[in-house]
């Protein structure tokens, strides 16, 4: 693995007394798509949310271990979590646009960062929507409410919204699971285009999707990282038996 963007060392997560992640250690490569797969409840989404510290929002959660992004442990006391989230963006399973106009949704992030100049914001909105492959569809209705868009469009809008703050890393938590096949393939295409500029980590319960879109795959089971490697290898010659069982559909 050449460039490593995120180094995870013995990361464990507890909901109160209950352990949900068990000493996860892995390296996540830069400018590649890494897929996290595993059966329901295996901890892949929980792990994903550790990367941008969204689990901080749950009061009973405690985390041990280190998560180094470009050498900096994001769980260090001195680190400002708000800055982390500007560098590590997240797209959620169910699209969650703000009840505002399409323009305002995209401009939300930049505005928070202090950008007020209209020309600048206009530019950012256009760039972000272009990158999310949805500019042509929406350019004539930027002032319409985002809630009027279809599910697939809303999700691409949310991706655009995340891109507008220029993150390095984009986390995607089953971004297409609520969408129809055509919207799903649009999102997958988008992921492929985006990886040149961004590091993408995507949780999916759809193994075919993982095989199609990712360069590396990590298999989680019951809070443990069982195996991680190049997607090709994982799916053709997995090392661990559990991995093989999952991939061949024996459980999950």
């Amino acid at each position: 693995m050449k460039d490593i963007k995120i180094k995870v060392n013995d990361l464990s997560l507890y909901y109160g007394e209950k352990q949900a992640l068990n000493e996860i250690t892995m390296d996540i490569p830069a400018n590649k798509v890494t897929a996290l797969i595993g059966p329901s409840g295996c901890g892949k989404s929980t792990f994903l949310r550790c990367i941008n510290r969204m689990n901080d929002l749950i009061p009973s959660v405690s985390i041990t271990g280190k998560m180094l992004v470009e050498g900096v442990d994001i769980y260090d006391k001195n680190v400002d979590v708000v800055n982390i989230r500007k560098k590590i963006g997240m797209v959620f399973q169910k699209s969650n646009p703000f009840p505002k106009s399409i323009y305002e949704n995209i401009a939300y992030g930049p505005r928070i960062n202090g950008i007020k100049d209209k020309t600048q914001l206009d530019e950012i909105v256009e760039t972000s929507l272009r990158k999310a492959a949805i500019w042509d569809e929406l350019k004539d209705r930027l002032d319409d409410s985002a809630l009027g868009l279809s599910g697939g469009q809303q999700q691409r809008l949310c991706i655009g919204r995340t891109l507008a703050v220029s993150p390095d890393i984009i986390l995607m938590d089953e971004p297409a699971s609520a969408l129809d096949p055509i919207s799903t393939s649009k999102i997958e295409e988008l992921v492929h285009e985006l990886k040149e500029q961004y590091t993408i980590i995507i949780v999916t319960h759809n193994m075919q999707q993982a095989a199609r879109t990712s360069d590396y795959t990590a298999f989680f089971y019951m809070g443990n990282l069982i195996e991680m490697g190049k997607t090709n290898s994982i799916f053709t010659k997995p090392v661990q038996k559990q991995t093989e069982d999952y991939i061949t559909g024996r459980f999950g």
Partner: protein
Amino acid sequence: MDKVLKNTGVHFFSSKKSASDIKGKIFVGVTQLAVILIIAILFIILGIIVYEGRAKFSWEFISSFPTNGMTEGGIFPALIGTFILVIVMSIAAVPFGTITALYLTEYASENSKFAAAVRFSVRTLAVVPSIIFGLFGLGFFIQFLGAGADTAFNGGQLRWGQPNILWASLTMSLLTLPVIIVSVEEALKTIPRELREASLALGATKWQTIKKVVLPGSVSGIMTGTILAVSRGAGEVAPILFTGAAYYLATLPGSLSDQFMNLGYHIYIMSTQSSDVEKTMPIQFATTLVLLILTLSLNIVAVIIRSRIRRKAK
């Protein structure tokens, strides 16, 4: 098979009505009767008020001052006094109540003892009899704060240490605070967690999220709470009995240190202490009608807004 069933006397479909069936029907009948009774009483009261008051109820009534020792004329100063009261009350109660609701919903942690104490206080405040607020207003606002201010800033001269519209409004705002807090809390809770998460995931601070996503979404809840508070404040009399309401003032209040007239108080005084209670009957009824229309329409507006909020939350 048939023989067995016949012997035990079990029938597949019983044609007799069972006892619990009848009990059920009686229960429904009794509740229906109760509802009809309540609605009937309500309509009778409303009917009497409208009937007795319609003679005096006119534009002139609303816009002119009382004359001839309060036995003739209109209720204009009482109407204005009530308006000023609820406006000042809202200015005090709405921001305070909104901030409290924000704290309870957004900032307080699950096991915070302080938050539990706040919640308990709000609930208790909601059931305190309104006369107690009046006594508190007299003791704290007038005799302590007001008199203290006079000694400190006025050289002992009496200006703030007596009943006036400021103290009455503040007293009333304490009474209506729970209403506002509950309405705003309800509105805040309808904002889905996903929207807050979306904002935080973009690198917004908690306060930015509240300012840009949560508060704009709860404006209707704040409005509902305010309207309900205003409706309550317009009708309550006990809190202003000794904190600022006056029976008769020749002029409208010019500053916060003036006393004021008030619709509810007006009705109370006229029905118990006027020089000629019989003669002023129509005025009393008409004043009651005005007050009822005011509070009823405010409540209806609040209910409409609130049901829109609830529909949006589904």
